[in-house]
């Protein structure tokens, strides 16, 4: 073998089998973005359960020539592509997360005060306002719907809907949804104070009635019947959610309920985060759309908070026993963060005003409301 041949072989190996000569500037930017998210998650404890796997997913797929998100010669998906295909494309992971969420949820506050369901509906205002806003900016109807749902503050619902309608926006939408969910304590209070007077913030609500175990047991069945009959498209999400809750409340499958709440939830969170992060390859992600999505996501959250509080004000016009409008902001489904924010703001106005259980009602209604909105959008595009 001559020196020329050795040189040619060496160059061939360097250019086709090593990453360094193939590294492009866009990938370097994406690696920097990955580091930012990992830093926020690790150093600042900013939604670490999701941002660590998402950040690492971004980190891994933005190296050149990596066999992670492609499809092999025989059509076999590569490692993370397989997680994505079977977990997200097949819509399994978001539904399994809903199963875990159902197993974690105590619907007692919602059953004790069903009026708060209306607040959960009112808090979906931002979803529809953002939908119009994004259409003005040239998004398609499907893209607009998937961006709009970010304001519902429900990560799995956002991922479920986006994977169904606009999979190319999955990374940006998921990242925006989880980022703003973590920022609920900063985004909501100024809007809450702006939309309420000190007297309204001091309104004390009557203690919730205790809810019997039988009522809690039958709730998932009743809710599933009504919601699935009205919006069949939401059956995968709502069905799993109510199944998880039924396992919790029936009390005879404690091991299953415990697995759904903990081990299963943790496992799917790892695959969800990695898969979502891996969709953010430089070629697909670096454009104006993700920036617009982040912008609209913030507006979405603000309008949803506004919508929830406005709904309480409207309800108070007709109710004898007034609701504290601070619980309206909990209509976004960031459980239990937004309920805690309502409680904290209530305590600032009156140290004896304990709102957390009252705010859990709209908070849970928000979960159902955002899933219903997602179902409406899915039905619209069928």
């Amino acid at each position: 073998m001559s020196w020329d041949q050795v040189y040619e072989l060496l160059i061939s190996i360097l250019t086709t089998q090593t990453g360094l000569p193939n590294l492009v500037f866009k990938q370097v930017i994406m690696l920097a973005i990955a580091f930012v998210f990992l830093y926020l998650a690790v150093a600042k404890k900013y939604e670490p359960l999701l941002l660590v796997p998402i950040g690492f997913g971004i980190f891994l797929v933005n190296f050149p020539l990596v066999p992670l998100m492609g499809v092999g010669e025989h059509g076999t998906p590569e490692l993370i592509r397989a997680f994505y295909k079977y977990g997200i494309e097949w819509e399994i992971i978001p539904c399994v997360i809903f199963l875990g969420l159902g197993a974690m949820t105590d619907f007692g506050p919602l059953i004790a005060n069903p009026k708060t369901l209306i607040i959960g509906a009112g808090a979906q205002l931002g979803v529809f306002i953002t939908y119009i806003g994004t259409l003005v900016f040239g998004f398609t109807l499907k893209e607009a719907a998937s961006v709009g749902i970010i304001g519902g503050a429900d990560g799995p619902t956002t991922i479920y809907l986006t994977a169904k309608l606009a999979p190319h926006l999955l990374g940006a939408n998921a990242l925006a949804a989880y980022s703003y969910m973590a920022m609920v304590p900063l985004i909501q209070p100024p809007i809450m104070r702006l939309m309420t007077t000190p007297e309204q913030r001091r309104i004390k609500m009557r203690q919730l009635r205790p809810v019997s175990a039988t009522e809690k047991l039958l709730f998932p069945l009743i809710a599933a019947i009504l919601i699935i009959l009205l919006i069949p498209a939401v059956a995968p999400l709502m069905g799993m959610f109510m199944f998880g809750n039924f396992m919790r409340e029936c009390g005879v499958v404690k091991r299953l309920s415990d697995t759904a709440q903990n081990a299963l939830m943790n496992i799917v969170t790892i695959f969800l985060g990695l898969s979502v992060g891996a969709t953010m390859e430089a070629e697909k992600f670096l454009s104006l759309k993700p920036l617009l999505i982040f912008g609209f996501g913030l507006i979405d959250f603000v309008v949803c908070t506004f919508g929830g509080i406005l709904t309480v004000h409207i309800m108070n016009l007709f109710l004898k026993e007034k609701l504290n409008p601070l619980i309206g902001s909990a209509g976004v489904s960031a459980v239990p963060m937004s309920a805690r924010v309502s409680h904290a703001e209530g305590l600032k106005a009156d140290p004896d005003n304990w709102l957390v259980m009252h705010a859990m009602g709209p908070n849970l209604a928000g979960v159902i409301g955002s899933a219903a909105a997602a179902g409406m959008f899915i039905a619209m595009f069928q």
Partner: protein
Amino acid sequence: MMTRHSTIWLARAVALFLAAALLAVLLQPGQARAFVVGTDFEKPKPEFSREGETVVAKLIPRAKSSSVTIDFRVSGARLAAVRGVDFETAARPEVNEKNFKSALFDIQVDDVPVGGKIRVSILSSFFTRSTAFYVYNPRLQPPWTDAQAENIDHPERVQELVVTVADGGPFDADGAADGRITLTGGPRDSFWGYALGTLFIRFFGIFIVLSVLMVGILFSGRIFQWLEGRKSRPGAVGAPTAGAAASEKPAASDTRSVASAEVAAAIATALHLHIVRRRTTQPQPLSSSSTNAWALSGRSRMMDERQQQARRTYRSRS
């Protein structure tokens, strides 16, 4: 967590960015939108098949996830072929591509009586009563024209658009009365009308769904409270009588809590007496033999303890 200060800056940056983007869209709508939209993932890609005299197009229209079929028929001549047309070739600033959800078609008709008229029928369950058919002819000014198609209802929600075309007339793309007609155009629906209409319906739809759920929970809650009230009635202590009061206090659980409070108080008293007795030291027998200071002090302490014990016993009995 982010600080309040950084959040304010983030909010300002987002507001500024959106304002700039909106300005760009308003000033240069075509270019800005094209920049935002990027790849058109929803472009319909029709596939054609022939069933006798009918050509069937199968495609996934814009804003849909499932495929639809569109049937093309001609009366008064022979339908030679139908093919899809890329909208970019017919794009004009006054026409929004999104209004044409099911693509553009080039319909070629042969064996037309020279200078005669034919009727082109386009049928689909995807069309609505407000669907129109727009014809594109670059030789005309403006090139896009509403063909004033008849919109006919059929069973199973099928709508038929019927366009009358004259050989060599304004809708004939070749412009010549030569026994052949080329009709270019597509079914048109109002994008914004659909987007806003469906938005309005679906937003209130969520209210309706959650209101139905609310009524369901209220109704079942009443039944459960009534059943609980019935269970608690025999032997209930201080069970609520009024309906409103009953909603605040579940009778069964309250009855149990009152009874258990009495039991708890009795147990607590018994425990207290037991512990007090155990804590109190037993009096020692007195011996008067020693009279030193230590003995006198000890005797005095024992007397005090006896006195205390006597007082406690008396109190507990009274």
